[in-house]
């Protein structure tokens, strides 16, 4: 594939010129069936880099402070899709990263699969990731080197399930049904915290879920703690989540976390006119305020 070749060339160039010490990209796993992140440090290894619709991971996770070992490997170049590039914007906005500390290999993307095991050579409206159906960043909004030509914006997955429609439908249901819907999902939660571990924006050094003096969130996997955890996680991502969809993908029990994250994104956009990830200037909406914020619900 053309893009793949160009990606390898660019990676080789960057590594040979010592502009970067490390290229974080996608590569085949041992049996050549699945795609996983690869960390390339030598120019002769760049042929391990690949690009195809199974490249779902948000690799910006590895340039956050959650990965000091990656940081120790030196200056990184990261392969980013449009949605991943938005994460970088938020990380810069939140002072987690300096723009000049990372080289972004932006890769125009025409949609990735929801789960790798669903992929059968083609991205269809059945196996496409829900984020791609509503995608408006096929071309990364932020990059240093663009790999290949830009692609046309717009979805191209008409008829696929649309997350905003699903949220609307859920919103229309009576409260009791919504409660039952979420309890059914939260009940399955095993509190593995995969959603937190995979999220590039959940980068606290010490998570409230691990604090026990006092114990804010029950640690065992039962309803009470599960509700507290899932609501708290969603709340902390409000106004920051860029819909990379990694939490839902990583969830071993298929809790529809995209729904709850995107619901809050909609609320934030409506209330504060803010869409996270499109710029690195300014502040995340929940750490600032406006005198004009609505207070129709306050007595």
């Amino acid at each position, binding site marked *: 594939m053309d893009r793949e070749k160009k990606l390898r060339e660019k990676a080789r160039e960057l590594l040979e010129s010592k502009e970067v010490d490390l290229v974080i990209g996608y590569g085949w796993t041992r049996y050549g069936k699945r795609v996983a992140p690869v960390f390339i440090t030598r120019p002769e290894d760049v042929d391990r880099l690949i690009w195809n619709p199974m490249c779902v991971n948000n690799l910006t996770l590895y340039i956050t402070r959650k990965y000091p070992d990656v940081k120790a490997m030196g200056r990184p170049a990261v392969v980013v899709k449009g949605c991943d590039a938005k994460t970088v914007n938020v990380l810069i906005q939140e002072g987690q990263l300096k723009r000049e500390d990372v080289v972004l290999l932006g890769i125009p993307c025409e949609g990735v699969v929801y789960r790798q095991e669903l992929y059968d050579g083609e991205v269809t409206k059945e196996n496409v990731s829900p984020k791609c159906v509503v995608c408006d960043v096929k071309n990364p909004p932020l990059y240093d080197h663009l790999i290949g030509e830009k692609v046309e914006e717009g979805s191209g997955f008409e008829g696929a399930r649309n997350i905003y429609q699903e949220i609307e439908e859920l919103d229309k249901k009576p409260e009791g049904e919504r409660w039952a819907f979420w309890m059914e999902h939260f009940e399955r939660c095993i509190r593995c915290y995969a959603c937190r571990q995979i999220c590039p924006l959940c980068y606290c050094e010490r998570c409230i879920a691990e604090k026990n003096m006092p114990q804010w969130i029950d640690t065992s996997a039962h*309803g*009470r703690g599960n509700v*507290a955890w899932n*609501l708290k996680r*969603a*709340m902390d991502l409000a106004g920051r989540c860029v819909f990379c969809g990694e939490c839902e993908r990583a969830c071993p029990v298929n809790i529809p976390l995209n729904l709850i994250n995107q619901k809050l994104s909609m609320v934030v956009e409506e*209330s504060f006119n803010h869409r996270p990830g499109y710029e690195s200037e300014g502040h995340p909406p929940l*750490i600032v305020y406006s005198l004009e914020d609505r207070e129709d619900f306050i*007595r």
Partner: protein
Amino acid sequence: MEEKGWEPRIVAFVCNWCTYAGADLAGTSRLEYRPEVRIIKLPCTGRIDPLFIIKAFEKGADGVLVSGCHPGDCHYTSGNYHARRRWIVFRELLKFAGIDLRRVHFSWVSASEALKWRDLINEVIETVRSAGPFEAYRRLNP
């Protein structure tokens, strides 16, 4: 859980500088209001984490009230503005999760508004009473 004579349990998170003083004034003025409210004093509404509300429900509250200084009156200049923004989002989150919004209330009560406090508490208790005991949440307890 719902026995005869059930009365709602309300937890009120109030700020030290305005609402607590207002409630205190209501007390010293010998205003009578419903006793089902438990007041928890915090430095500022900006200090109130959404987890506090979740915790209150976990511990058996049927309704929650958050109250602080009027906009512009915050002892720490902007705590209540930050809180207001947080509640806009958190309220929608609770609603989306299927929690009846009759159980969560927000208000501004200043140090001189003892009468407002009295009426507010009575109103909130009536609203929570109409929502009934929060059995759905208590059932989550292990």
